[in-house]
């Protein structure tokens, strides 16, 4: 029995170190959710998660590549093995934990806010409200009296508010504040921010313990040495 345990431990160590040096990790992201992730003018994935992800890969020794994928199918494609990790501003929720596993959070829960055209009052919060499909915001709205309209991308959602197709949109405050700052006063926050998120983490296949352990340790280290906070301050003011 003892032998077996030692043997197993050795095997794990051996595979762990050997693979940690060579393993290519494909990180899936949406590329449409600044400041978390977006495609910059050089056609590269950019944003908070790119910077953090690259740092994590550097620490763990994985060889990382970034791929973009529609938000709607980002979880099924992870499960199918088309990439190995998700870093896409994804909140850690119980529903998602049934399909995938998460590392510890690398960003504390971001409040969600309602976005509306200037001059709107709080009644829009129970009117026709847009959200990106398969998000915590869309499942939150489904339980409120508001009429939910789902859009596949954040961009489409904001466009719907702009042209009056919907009364308001509910999304991550960090994403919306960029939009509002640039709108020249046409768009505003309405109501109080909601605390419906538990924090953002990296999504992984449930079977992939190797990645989870490695990334968990690395995130913890960045958190302890203050590097993570510097990045958060940089991207989220």
């Amino acid at each position, binding site marked *: 029995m003892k032998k077996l345990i030692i043997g197993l431990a050795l095997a794990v160590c051996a595979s762990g170190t050997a693979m940690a040096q*060579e*393993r*290519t990790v*494909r990180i899936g992201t949406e590329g*449409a959710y*600044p*400041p978390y992730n*977006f*495609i*910059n*003018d*050089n*056609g590269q994935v950019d*944003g908070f998660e790119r910077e953090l992800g690259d740092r994590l890969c550097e620490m763990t020794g994985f*060889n990382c*590549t*970034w*791929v973009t994928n529609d938000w709607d199918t980002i979880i*099924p494609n992870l*499960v*199918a*093995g088309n*990439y*190995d990790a998700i870093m896409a501003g994804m909140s850690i929720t119980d529903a998602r934990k049934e399909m995938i596993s998460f590392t510890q959070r690398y960003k504390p829960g971001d409040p969600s806010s309602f976005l509306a055209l200037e001059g709107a009052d709080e009644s829009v919060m129970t009117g026709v409200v847009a959200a990106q499909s398969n998000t915590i915001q869309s499942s939150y709205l489904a339980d409120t009296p508001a009429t939910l309209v789902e859009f596949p991308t954040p*961009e489409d959602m*904001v*466009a719907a508010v*702009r042209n009056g197709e919907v009364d308001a949109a509910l999304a991550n405050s960090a994403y919306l504040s*960029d*939009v509002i*700052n*640039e709108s020249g006063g046409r768009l505003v926050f309405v109501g109080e921010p909601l605390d419906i998120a538990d924090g953002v983490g990296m999504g992984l296949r449930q079977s992939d313990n190797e990645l989870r352990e490695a990334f968990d340790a690395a995130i913890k280290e960045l958190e302890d040495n203050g590097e993570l906070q510097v990045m958060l301050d940089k991207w989220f003011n």
Partner: protein
Amino acid sequence: MCYLTTVKHSMFYWSFGIVLALLALTAPAALLLGFLGAMAKRSQVAVVRWIGSIYTSMVRGIPDIIFFMFVPIALGQGIEYVRHKIKCPDVTEPIRQGNDFVVCAAAKFPLGSADQWVHQTYGFALATVAFAFVFGAFVANTIDGAMRAVPANQLETGHAYGMTRRQVFWRILVPQMWSYALPGLSNLWQILIKATPLLFLLGVQDVVYWARELGGSKTSRYEYPHGDWRLWYFMVLLVFYLLMTWGSEKVFRRLSTRFARGQATQAGQQHLEAKA
């Protein structure tokens, strides 16, 4: 002017090359598949004939878009399934676990460790196969019709001269058939051009992908912030496609006059008279 020369824009310009590459690869592949399909429909073996008929009539009843979505996934999973059986014969767990399609890491294709461009090329290749499959069926219909349009007495003459079935097919039917097939084929070419933006649905980073990406409103996180410009980018695509279809129509018009030469058709007759 710098705005139009960003790396992202050059990717947009390159993506027009992807459209042209798709056309260049699909057209001959579809022509070949179509020819085989038409031959199958004329086969003396009943089973082959049925396969030919099912293949050609399927695309008439089912929207092409369903094929475009189905074929790449099905093919991709098929390839991984076979690789899984070969490379990981020891894995006993089923490949379909509930809603997941799980093959061993070595069976992934392309391998998880492959470069991003390999993945993209593979995606493009699957899309090409889907296009060739659908358009092959259309071509088969056209060629089949053209073969039927060749006057029967021409073939009978061949037989009367003691030619074999095969000789009649290759020496009389096929050369004659092209001029009848040309109008249909030119139409299919136009349709193929107009089907290329569907690449976007297959996850290929084509012109539509970049038009949406570049046109979407940009905050000052980006170098060149702007509002929603997608309308203008799509205008560019519209002009591109109008030029493509307009240009190829001209080319085909020329081709058809050339093909009409020496044919026992009205157009061929006119050709002779014009010369005389």
